[in-house]
Each structure stands twice: as C-alpha cells, then as structure tokens.
C-alpha cells in the first residue's frame, strides 16, 4: 500500500466544508461540543496543569455584594471565588477590546535530573522557557473573538492553541503540541543503529558466534541512552451554524510520533540450559550457553491522520434531533519492520546458521466510521426515543515479510541438520499470499426510550447490539515445500530441537505428518446484545431511589464459550436528607454464566484438522488443563458498592468522603480466582476568604487478585500416552503441581494545596503530594513439582520462600509558585518543584550496572527506573501583561 499522506485530503475536506458553511452562518444558537470528540480537550503542562493559572487570582470583592461567602454547587461543593478580570484595552477605534499576557524565563534542574519518573512526561531541560503566552480579543458588538494560549518547556513539551469565531455562529480552532514520554533513562542498548530498522552488533562481536564474556565486555562499555517517544500533533477544526437549527463540524488532526522504546528478541529459551552450580542444591545455578533473549530497541515513527466531519440538528426536522458523523483515521508506520543481529548461538557449543531475527512492526491501517444518532420526543409519558446506528471498518493490506530473513538464514544454508533449506523460507515466495488483506467490520445499533409517567418517576428501556466481523484469513502454507505451519522464533527452535519441533506439518511426510501446529490465523469476533431496564423514583423532596437491570448476552466466536450471559442489578440511593449533605450511594450485583467451556476451541486452525494428519501413538500433547477458565470467559459473581457524601461545613468548607469496594469471584481453580478492591477517600476544601484557599485529600486503597495454576508433568512429554490427559489431578496435571499467586497492593495518597494572596502584589501557591504504593506478590504451592523441573536440583523450599520482595513506588512532590507584581504590567514568577522518589520492582532487582545486563545468553537493555532519586526544578519568569 503506498504511504500516501492523507493530511492534504483531510485539509481539503475541512476547508471545503468551512467554505460552504461559513456563508451559511445564520440564526439560532450554536454551541460547541468538545466533549463529543476524543482527545485534545486539555492544553496544559507541568508548569501549569490547568493552563489557566496566570488568570487565577481571586477577586477580593468576591462574587456578590449580597453575601460574603461563595455559594455552593447543587451537590454542596463550594464554588471557587471568581478570578479577577484581566485589564482590557480597546483595539483601535472599533469595537474590539483585547488583553494579553507573556511569561518567559529560564528553567534549571538539579539533583538526579535523569531519573525516569522525574522526566516521565516533562522532559525537563536547562533552557529558556515560555511560561505562558495568552492573547484574547473580543468584539463586544459583533461577538467575534480570538483566543490564543501557548506554553513551552522545551521542544518536546509545548502547546499552542488558537480559537476564533463568533459567539453563537461558528468557531475555528487550530493547535500544535508536543507531549513527551520518557520511557527509560537507564538504557544501554548493545546494538548500533538504535532508531533505525536494522540493529547491528558493535565491533568485536560476531553474530551467532560471540561468547558470553565477549558480549558482557562490550555491553559494559555501551553508552547510556534515554529512550523517549514524543507525540507531535497539530490540528484544525471548525464548528458552526449551517442553517436554522443545523450545526456542522469538521476537523483534521495529524500526529507524528517518533522515538525509541524497549523491545524484544527471541532466539529460543535460555532457562533450559541452567545447570546446578558446584555448590549443589541451594546455591546459584550455572547459566548455560544455549538459547538467547535479546532486549532490543525498536523505532517509533508513526503518522496518524484523523478526519472528522458531520452535522447535527438541534430539533428542527420534524422534532428530530440528529447527529450525523463520518470519521476516518489513517495510520502510517514509516518503519514497519525491524531486524537485529543476535550475538549468541542458540545451540550450545557451536556457531549458528541463524544469526538474527526480524519483526513485522505495526502495519499501516485505515479506519472508517459513519454514525447516525437521532432522538425525538414522545407524547406518551413525556418520553423521548433515541436511536444510534454506526458502521465501522478497520483495514490493512501491508505486504508481508518472508518467514525468515535472508540476511540471517542465507540462501544455500540449511537449518542445522534438519534438511530445511533457508532458500525455501527466506523469500516471500514461501507465502500463501503476499499481503495481509486484513479487515474487521463493526456495527452498532442502540435504541432507547425514556419516560416520565409521573412527576416523581422516570423509566427507560435500552437495547443495544454491537457486532464485529473479522474477515481476515491467512493460511501458513509454504507453496515451495507444500508444508503448513511456521518456523518458530526465527527458525531457532528448529535449529535447537530438530525436525520434531520444527513447527511444520506435511501430510505424507513421516517427519511432519504428526506435528501439532497452528496453520492459520484465528479470526476472533465478538457480538454483544444488551437489554437494560431502569428507572428512578423520587420518594420525597430529599430522597431518590433507582433500580437498573441489565441483561448482556455475548456470543464470541472462536472462543472458549459460545455465549455468555451477564446480568447486572444496580440499586442507587441519592439523598439530601442528611442535613446539608448529599449522599450518592450505589450497589451493583453481577452474575455471569455461559455455555459449556471448551478449553481448546482452536482445533479447526491446528494441524489435526488437516487431511493427512496422523496422530502419534502417544496422542496429542495436552494443550492445557481442562479446568482452566480464562477470566473474560469464566463465570463471575461480583458486587460493587460506592458511597459519596458531600458535606458542607459552615459557609467556607466542604468535606467529601467516599467509600468504595468490589468483590469478584470467578468460579475457577485454575485461572483468576478472585479480585477485590476496598478504598476510601476524604477531601477537605476550605476557602475562608477570597485571599486564601486550602484543599487537601487523603486516599487509601487496597486490592487483591488471586490466581491458580498447575505445572504440567514434563516428564511425560513425548514419553507416555498420559501426556494427552488434560484433567486437573491427572498424571499430566497432578494436584501436586498446583500453585497459587496473590497480588496484594496497598496505596495511600495524601496531598494539600494552599493558595494565599498576601497583598495585591504577592500571591503564593504551595502544593504537596505524597504517593505510596506497595505491592507484594506472594505464592503458595502444593509441592516443588510446581517449579521448573530443571530447577529442582538447585532450589529448595527455603530458598523459594513464599513471596517476591515488595514492589514500592513512593513519590513526594513539593511544588511552589510565587507571583510578584512589580508594577501593574510587570511581574515576576518563581517556580519550584522538588521531587523525592523511591522505587523497587523485582523485575529489575539485580540490574544495578551495565555489566549486569548480560546473564547467560540473555542481553538486556534497560536497568529499570532509578531506585531512589531526588531532583528539583527551579524556574524564574518575567510576566508582562497589558
């Protein structure tokens, strides 16, 4: 598929629509619908997450001469004091007025400035910065306006947004922004060519033939890198009146995402080659020289163009309120493949013919969606009927790679002693089709009728259908050899294990006629039909009860169950009978059942379904244990409770308390067994005067997920007909090999902000946030049979213990802003942020220095986030304003 850039097409659409629409601007009210569209509804950054702090100086006069304090929302929260209106000036002799604010300065960082969590979404640099640039102009006679907002921390973290239009008639918006995401600041990639589609080994290493010592020596000297992805996006949109009661809208956004991130690289298992150490059981094992894992780095070079166009009616066409929308999204991957040279041979003791591997990275794809919504009042019981229908299609047709890369399995070579010729697999002639021709279509219909038969009673009924049709079909058939299946892990499994595990099936060939392998893609599809009946009853002026029943029938295709019935019963109680407080309480009970569970529904896509398959006398190796239930397909009994109490305290404070929890039981011994969460939050907001605001919160949560599993009896594999026994408690999956794992997490968050205007010239904002998360992964097991058989000669119950070290994430952040008005037009802003963090994750325990990145035939790139860090940001800005 040619990588034509659709932005131009989109812009033409948008401009054309605008050109047609603008002259039609006429009557009736126009209002925007930002919350109708996904993304880019917020423009802010670390210096000012609200994007509006420059204008948030409260007016000491308050909101009203009639009462000294602020009023409250209907629920009971205090409204903040109104901000002082910025000084405005007339623009020329016309009816325009305007104001502006410019804030510029310098940012300095200190401490552990490369800490990953410090940089995560900031990408702080010591550099000049634009704190804010705001310009606003308004014509009070015509309602025309222009608004511009912008801020820039550095080239990877900036935004600029322009809006202009006429109140009630139209609005045009354009933006440009960069959002950074720092993924690692402790990366030491072994390979050259990071960021490209080809990773090569540095001098001194030989693909497929390097020793562990050689690789470790080279790795120890690799330079430290930061892996980061930046989203650069821009967009333009228009929304405005097309005629009486009709509003049109159109928009185009374009995002370029670029950078690098951790990736993988599989060259067969290494753990198979771990041997007992000289000290015997209970002492470190010896890492072997077989297999290979390569934590590589992939490029990210995407362009996504989204086009959105539509029109809606505000109830003019025979009482119908319509919304018709068409959208399209075009994703382009400018680096849609990646290859890497592997330093090690996966075969112990000999050089490898397979010297590297490849990936297909994400293919280009197109997405189209058309959607129609309509609602109409009903004469019956003051009702309303609404209907929604949409159709979507996801498509891609990228050219497919050859099964093996000729660079790593060259023509003329054979894979080990298997007789499998590279020439038969390193060409696209080995494919059954040359391009993906992948497509999934979706459809949706939602019908709803709402009624108010009595003043105090509302009721509704809702029907929803959504379906997916996966039309992708691909057969792994090699016309050059007449074989089905695929060569695993870049051919290394074949290289190591030989023909019996080559991954191939061929009728009539004794080497391959009994091999159990997948030979085609499995087109998973999901369909969902849902009916919901609900209503609320206003018991009295202060209490309202609600009840909702939902029946959800899912009919997944190619999954373990042919249907799932999910039933929900939800009770709500909203009350203002508790003094001045508002209570919102809900309880929901859910029960999911379904058809018979088939632990392996995929046989039609596996070789036993092909003609000529000859079952081995040992039978087919048990794919999995038959008592396993995948948690999205298992039975479920769940309950969920939440209560929010908003309590006004006097005239100046609000206390909000939340309790919540859920319990989920999946009815499975093997698979996810249960999940639960319990938490509470307290927020206290106090505004004693316009000059002082204090907000604080305390949040606690604990959660737990438990699962069960059973290790198979590997000694039966290819040795006994009992290998085919899938029963839990049978010889292949004995009770003795059963184990459970429990993830228990506790989270606490505390924070407070205080804002005080000392004098009209001095305003100070200070905020403190503390986050503490502690996760413990525990495990229990029936016997040592639960662990990897090869480790039985190394590990003991004492050395295994019953849990991993705790995972910790602790972060304290102190942020301060001091604004000084030097003159009416000139000010000074001092910004400070201090962060102190602590982190532990057992995935990265022991990765302390680049020399730790090579373990046996494994090469890693990332040392993981810093375990303890502190860093500060200081910024000084000059503020100029009208």
């Amino acid at each position: 598929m040619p990588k034509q850039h659709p932005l131009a097409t989109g812009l033409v659409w948008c401009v054309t629509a605008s050109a047609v629409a603008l002259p039609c601007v006429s009557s009736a009210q126009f209002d925007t619908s930002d919350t109708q569209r996904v993304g880019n509804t917020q423009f802010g950054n670390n210096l000012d997450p609200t994007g509006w702090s420059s204008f948030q100086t409260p007016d000491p006069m308050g909101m009203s001469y009639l009462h000294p304090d602020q009023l409250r929302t209907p629920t009971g929260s205090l409204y903040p004091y109104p901000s002082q209106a910025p000084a405005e000036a007339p623009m020329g002799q016309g009816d325009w007025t305007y104001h502006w604010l410019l804030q510029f300065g310098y940012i300095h960082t200190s401490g552990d400035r490369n800490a990953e969590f410090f940089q995560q979404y900031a990408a702080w640099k010591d550099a000049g910065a634009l704190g804010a640039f705001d310009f606003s102009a308004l014509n009070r006679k015509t309602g025309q306006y222009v608004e511009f907002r912008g801020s820039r921390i550095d080239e990877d973290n900036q935004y600029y947004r322009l809006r202009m239009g006429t109140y009630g008639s139209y609005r045009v918006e354009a933006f440009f922004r960069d959002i950074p995401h720092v993924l690692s600041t402790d990366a030491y990639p072994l390979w050259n060519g990071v960021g490209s589609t080809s990773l090569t080994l540095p001098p001194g290493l030989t693909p497929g033939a390097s020793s562990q010592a050689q690789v470790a020596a080279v790795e120890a000297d690799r330079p430290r890198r930061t892996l980061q992805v930046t989203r650069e996006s821009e967009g333009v949109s228009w929304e405005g009146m097309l005629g009486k009661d009709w509003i049109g809208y159109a928009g185009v956004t374009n995002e370029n995402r670029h950078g690098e991130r951790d990736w993988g690289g599989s060259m067969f298992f290494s753990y198979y080659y771990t041997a007992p150490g000289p000290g015997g059981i209970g002492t470190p094992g010896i890492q072997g020289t077989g297999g290979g894992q390569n934590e590589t780095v992939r490029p990210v070079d995407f362009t996504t163009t989204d086009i959105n166009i539509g029109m809606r009616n505000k109830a003019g066409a025979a009482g119908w309120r319509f919304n018709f929308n068409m959208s399209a999204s075009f994703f382009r991957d400018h680096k849609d493949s990646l290859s890497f040279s592997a330093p090690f041979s996966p075969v112990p003791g000999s050089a490898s013919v397979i010297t590297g591997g490849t990936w297909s990275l994400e293919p280009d794809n197109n997405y189209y969606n058309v959607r129609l919504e309509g609602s109409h009042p009903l004469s019956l019981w003051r009702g309303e009927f609404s209907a929604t229908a949409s159709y979507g299609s996801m498509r891609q047709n990228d050219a497919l790679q050859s099964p093996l890369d000729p660079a790593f399995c060259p023509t003329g070579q054979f894979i080990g002693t298997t007789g499998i010729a590279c020439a038969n697999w390193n060409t696209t002639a080995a494919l059954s089709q040359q391009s993906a021709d992948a497509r999934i279509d979706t459809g949706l219909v939602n019908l709803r009728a709402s009624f108010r038969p009595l003043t105090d009673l509302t009721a509704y009924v809702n029907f929803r259908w959504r379906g997916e049709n996966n039309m992708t079909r691909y057969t792994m058939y090699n016309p050059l050899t007449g074989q089905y299946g695929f060569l695993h892990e870049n051919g290394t499994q074949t290289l190591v294990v030989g023909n019996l595990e080559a991954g191939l099936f061929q009728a009539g060939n004794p080497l391959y006629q009994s091999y159990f392998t997948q030979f085609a893609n499995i087109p998973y599809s999901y369909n969902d039909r849902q009916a919901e009946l609900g209503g609320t009853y206003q018991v009295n002026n202060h209490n309202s009860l609600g009840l909702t029943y939902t029946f959800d029938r899912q009919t997944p295709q190619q999954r373990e169950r042919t249907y799932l019935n999910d039933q929900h019963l939800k009770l709500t109680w909203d009350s203002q009978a508790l003094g001045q407080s508002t209570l919102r309480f809900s309880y929901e009970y859910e029960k999911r059942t379904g058809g018979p569970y088939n632990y392996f529904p995929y046989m039609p896509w596996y070789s036993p379904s092909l003609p000529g398959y000859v079952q081995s006398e040992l039978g087919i190796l048990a794919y999995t244990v038959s008592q396993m239930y995948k948690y999205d397909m298992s039975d479920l009994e769940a309950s969920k409770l939440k209560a929010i109490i908003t309590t006004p305290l006097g005239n100046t404070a609000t206390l909000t308390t939340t309790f919540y929890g859920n319990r989920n039981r999946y009815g499975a011994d093997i698979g996810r067994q249960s999940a639960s969460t319990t938490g509470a939050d307290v927020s206290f907001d106090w505004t004693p005067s316009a000059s002082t605001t204090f907000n604080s919160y305390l949040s606690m949560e604990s959660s737990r997920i438990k699962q069960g599993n059973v290790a198979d009896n590997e000694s039966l594999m290819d040795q006994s007909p009992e290998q085919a026994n899938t029963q839990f408690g049978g010889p292949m999956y004995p009770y003795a090999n059963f184990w459970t794992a429990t993830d228990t997490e506790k989270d606490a968050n505390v924070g407070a902000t205080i804002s005080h205007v000392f004098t009209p010239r001095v305003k100070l904002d200070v905020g403190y946030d503390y986050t503490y998360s502690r996760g413990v992964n525990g495990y229990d097991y029936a016997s040592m049979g639960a662990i990897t058989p090869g480790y039985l000669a190394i590990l003991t119950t004492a050395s295994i213990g019953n849990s991993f070290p705790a995972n910790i994430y602790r972060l304290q952040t102190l942020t301060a802003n001091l604004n000084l008005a030097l003159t009416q037009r000139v000010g000074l802003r001092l910004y400070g942020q201090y962060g102190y963090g602590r982190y532990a994750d057992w995935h990265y325990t022991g990765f302390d220095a680049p020399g730790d990145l090579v373990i046996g035939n494994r090469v890693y790139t990332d040392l993981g986030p810093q375990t303890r860090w502190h860093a500060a940001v200081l910024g000084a800005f000059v503020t100029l304003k009208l």
Partner: protein
Amino acid sequence: MRTLRESLAVVWRRLLIMVALLAMGSSAFAQQAPLTSEDGAKLTQSDIDRMLPPTDMGAGRHADRSASASSASMSTGPATPFDAARIPANPAAPNAQPVGAKTCNACHALEDLHASHAMHVQSFQMGTSNTGPQAACEACHGPGSDHAKNPTAKGSIIAFTHGSASTPETQATVCLGCHAGGARQHWLGSVHEARGLSCTDCHNPMVRNSAEGALAKSSINQVCATCHQDVLVKFNRRSHMPLPEGQMACTDCHNPHGSITRPLLKTDTVNETCYTCHAEKRGPFIFEHAPVRENCLNCHDPHGSNQQTLLVLPMPMLCQQCHTMSGHPNDLQTRQSMRNGLTPDERLMGRSCVTCHTNIHGSNSPSGSMFHQ
C-alpha cells in the same frame, strides 16, 4: 473577621438598594404603594410593570414562546443569535414576569461584572447595540418579578446552587434549551442525569475560572475529582497517562454529558476509544491476540497502575491467568528467578513474557502466530 465581613455585606446591601431605588427614578418611588396594598391582593403584571424600571428584555414578549428566536435576530442586524433567547418557565413561579437585566443588576451588580467576563454573558451581551430583545439574566434564571418582589423566597427564580428549590430537571431544561444535542445527545438517562446531577455541579457560567468550558473549577480534571477523587489519585501511580501533568483530561475519553456506554465513553467500545490515540494497535493483524481484540481492559487499567505500562498485574502473573499451557508457561516463578536469584529466568526478568512474545498486541508477520515476530 467574619463579623466585619458580614457587617460590610449589610452595608453594601443597603447601599445598593438605595442606588437601585435612585436608578429607578422618582416614578418608581411613587409606584411603591401597590407593594403594600392594603387589600393584600396578588400583584398583576401591570402592577409590576409600573413598579419596575424600563427593561431590556422586552417584558411580556416572552409569552409568545412559539415565536422563532432566530427570526428576531435576523431582523435586527448582525447581532448574535442569542438575541431574543427564550425565557424559560419556572414551575415554582408560574405567574412571574420578566423584569430585565437592569433590574437584576440593581442588586446583582458584582455578579454581572464577573459574568460579563465569562463566555455566556459575553455572548448574550453581544447584541446589546441592536434593538431586539436580548438574552440576559432571565434567559437562564427565568422571569424575575416574583424574585424582585420577595428576593428571599425560594423558588421565586430558577436557582442553580445548593438548596435550590428548582429541581435538577428544571435546571437542566434551562441549559438544554440552548445546549441541545451534540455532546448532550444522550444526557437523558445518562448516569449523571439519573443520579440527580445538575449542569452547575460541573459548570459555573457566572465566572471565568477555567481556560474553557465555563467550569466550576479551574480544570476538567479538578471538576471530575470533586466526586471521583478515587479515580484521580490513581493517576499518581507509577504508570499513568499524563493527566497530573496537564496534558490530558478525563474528557479526552469520557463524555460526562452522557453516551451510549455505561462508563460514558465517547466511542462505542473501550478499544475504539483507545485506538484513537493508539492507532497502531488497531490493526487488524493477521494474528490477533484474543483478549487484546476483545477489550484493552483485560490487561490494562487506563487510570493508573503500579505495574509497567498500566498493567493490572505484573508479568508473568498477568499472562499466567490464562496461559496454563503445557511447557514453559505454567511453571511457578519464584524470587529465585530474579536477576540476583539462584536461577535467573527470562520469563520473569525485565519485560518478562514480552521479551520473547514482543508483538503481544498482534502480529503481521507470517511467522507471528505466537507474537515472537
């Protein structure tokens, strides 16, 4: 301090009443008598019209509610279409009549000052140079005569604050009078509507305290956290989307005004919402991973996680919930599989399972059915 403030407020009130009365002119003073009519009979519209100063609302014209608002503005030049916005009925004061913004401002001058810098009233005021009736205070608060007669009587005017006698439905009807359809297409029956929330729980059109959206607080995320603090604090966890950093908002994914999904998603499903920013995951791929195509939430918590990449569990436990197949997936991994353990194991260290099954979201490689390539 409070005592002083209250005293000042009382002084202000008296001062304003005096100013208002002066503004009404001598005729207004002369017409105060009906207010204390000896027979105590209900005031008529003509009584009120005599009592109140000249209005800018075209008092009485609101009765013609079937009249096209737009035709009025069309005939009066380039004023904004908000000219002649209809005055909503107040069920609690069915006989009230409009009195006009000048009357309101006699007492609510400071509110007017702030509101004049906010989008709503700015847009209402755009047409003031024209002759047609313009929308103003009563376009939202309903006809104000009853309130003018008895300012402390609850329900005499449509109020949008705590303790209001106006029901949430009445309040929402006012707002939807202009803001019908679009993002509010599915407001009726949405969870926020059903739970009795009012528009002004999240919005405050009387001030400009936010960059956009006429919000009740200074940002969307702060507004949502008023009730959903438990969700917002999850964004403080190790892996999260950049909400605390101000680069995203809850409304990037959710439509608080209602949608056809239970979690108020802007698209039809979770995955369609995720694909809007993660279009590379959309595929389709020739080899799909069943739970990935089904629902991103099977593995990720978009509100924040203590695991890498928003995962709900650490790998390999995440994968082992489903992958109990024979061979390497179903072995118990222990602390000795860590880098500094007795048996360091690639199934646990670093990125764990996805070190090998790297294309876990789907593969387009003809050799990628196990997501190795």
